[in-house]
């Protein structure tokens, strides 16, 4: 069934680059903007989205019971208390992986698209069955990566697979950016990564200790509307998804002091 629901896969290839954190923060940010959003934990093996959203104690049913038709969709959906526009579809038991097929994933996403404006799918790491199931149900994708060789290489592989599956648009989020390291050329720059991967940049997220604090509490940074660097980055990404034009600020090109200008001069590519 065709709806206008935006079904967005959040994937990376490599684990630990920030897929789940991005899914949780984008979900909350979109809900705060008044759009009805569902986040689907497609990582059945190692589910964590519930924990980052602080909803781990409120799960009764999961995607498994919905697919087995032992419960209704709305019985399994966990509505966020502070942001009722956001609901979580929890991942089922890891044993589900034995029988789960792309068409099952498609079925559950179809059900969600009847009720929601946005469905964000938190993809498992890797490019095996879990990824293939999730990609089959997705229309568009956000590839998350870090400015590190292994993360960029894995992202490249995932982008290739997304292209073959006809998923588009595919946009890039560069996570855990350290402006100081970029300025001293000890980290791949934003331009380096976008040039190599040849993807439009949806946004970048500055490395921020507050992310750890927020995951400790189970309250995504965008929930409190705080003003930490990462919180602002996440809400900007949500607003760009909604079509707002918010300029991308390259942190390594900021600063008007003599030192900053000298550092920028040193970054000039000669050949």
């Amino acid at each position, binding site marked *: 069934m065709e709806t206008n629901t935006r079904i967005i896969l959040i994937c990376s290839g490599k684990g630990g680059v920030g897929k789940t954190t991005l899914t949780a923060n984008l979900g909350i940010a979109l809900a705060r903007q008044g759009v009805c959003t569902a986040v689907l934990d497609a990582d059945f093996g190692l589910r964590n989205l519930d924990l980052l959203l602080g909803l781990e104690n409120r799960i009764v049913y999961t995607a498994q019971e919905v697919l087995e038709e032992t419960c209704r969709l709305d019985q399994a959906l966990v509505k966020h208390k502070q942001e009722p526009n956001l609901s979580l579809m929890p991942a089922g038991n890891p044993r589900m992986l034995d029988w789960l097929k792309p068409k099952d994933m498609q079925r559950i996403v179809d059900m969600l698209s009847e009720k929601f404006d946005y469905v964000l799918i938190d993809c498992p790491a890797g490019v095996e069955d879990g990824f293939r199931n999730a990609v089959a149900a997705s229309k568009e994708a956000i590839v998350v990566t870090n400015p*590190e*060789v292994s993360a*960029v*290489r894995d992202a*490249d*592989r995932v*982008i*290739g697979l997304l*292209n073959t599956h006809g998923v588009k648009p595919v946009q890039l989020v560069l996570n855990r950016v350290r402006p100081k390291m*970029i300025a*001293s*050329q*000890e*980290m*791949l*720059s934003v331009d*380096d990564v976008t040039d*190599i*991967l*040849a993807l439009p940049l949806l946004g970048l997220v500055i490395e921020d200790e507050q992310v750890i604090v927020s995951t400790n509490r189970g309250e995504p940074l965008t929930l409190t509307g705080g003003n930490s660097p990462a919180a602002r980055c996440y809400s900007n990404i949500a607003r760009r998804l909604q079509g707002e034009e918010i300029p991308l600020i390259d942190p390594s090109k900021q600063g008007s002091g003599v030192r900053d200008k000298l550092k920028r*001069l*040193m*970054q*000039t*590519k*000669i*050949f």
Partner: protein
Amino acid sequence: MTLRDIIFKLLGRQKTSASTARERLQLVLAHDRCDLSPELLDQMRREILDVVAKYVEIDIEEGAVSLETEDRMTALVANLPIKRSLVTTSSDNDETAS
């Protein structure tokens, strides 16, 4: 290579690690993307040359077949200088006969 890399080089110091990362990634990705071993590429090159050689006389020494990657598109680029055509049309034959 950035300005800093050049100054570092003059001073005999190591390149910045971001430069090294960039170069290593570009190499590894070119290989990842085409998923073709050098042996297979060479075999393909020889077979392509054989086919082309049936129709035109080519300069084998000058001929080159390579993979080039740009903007996520990998292209097979063949550069085969043609010496002369081997296939003569019937009208050509008529002309030479007369």
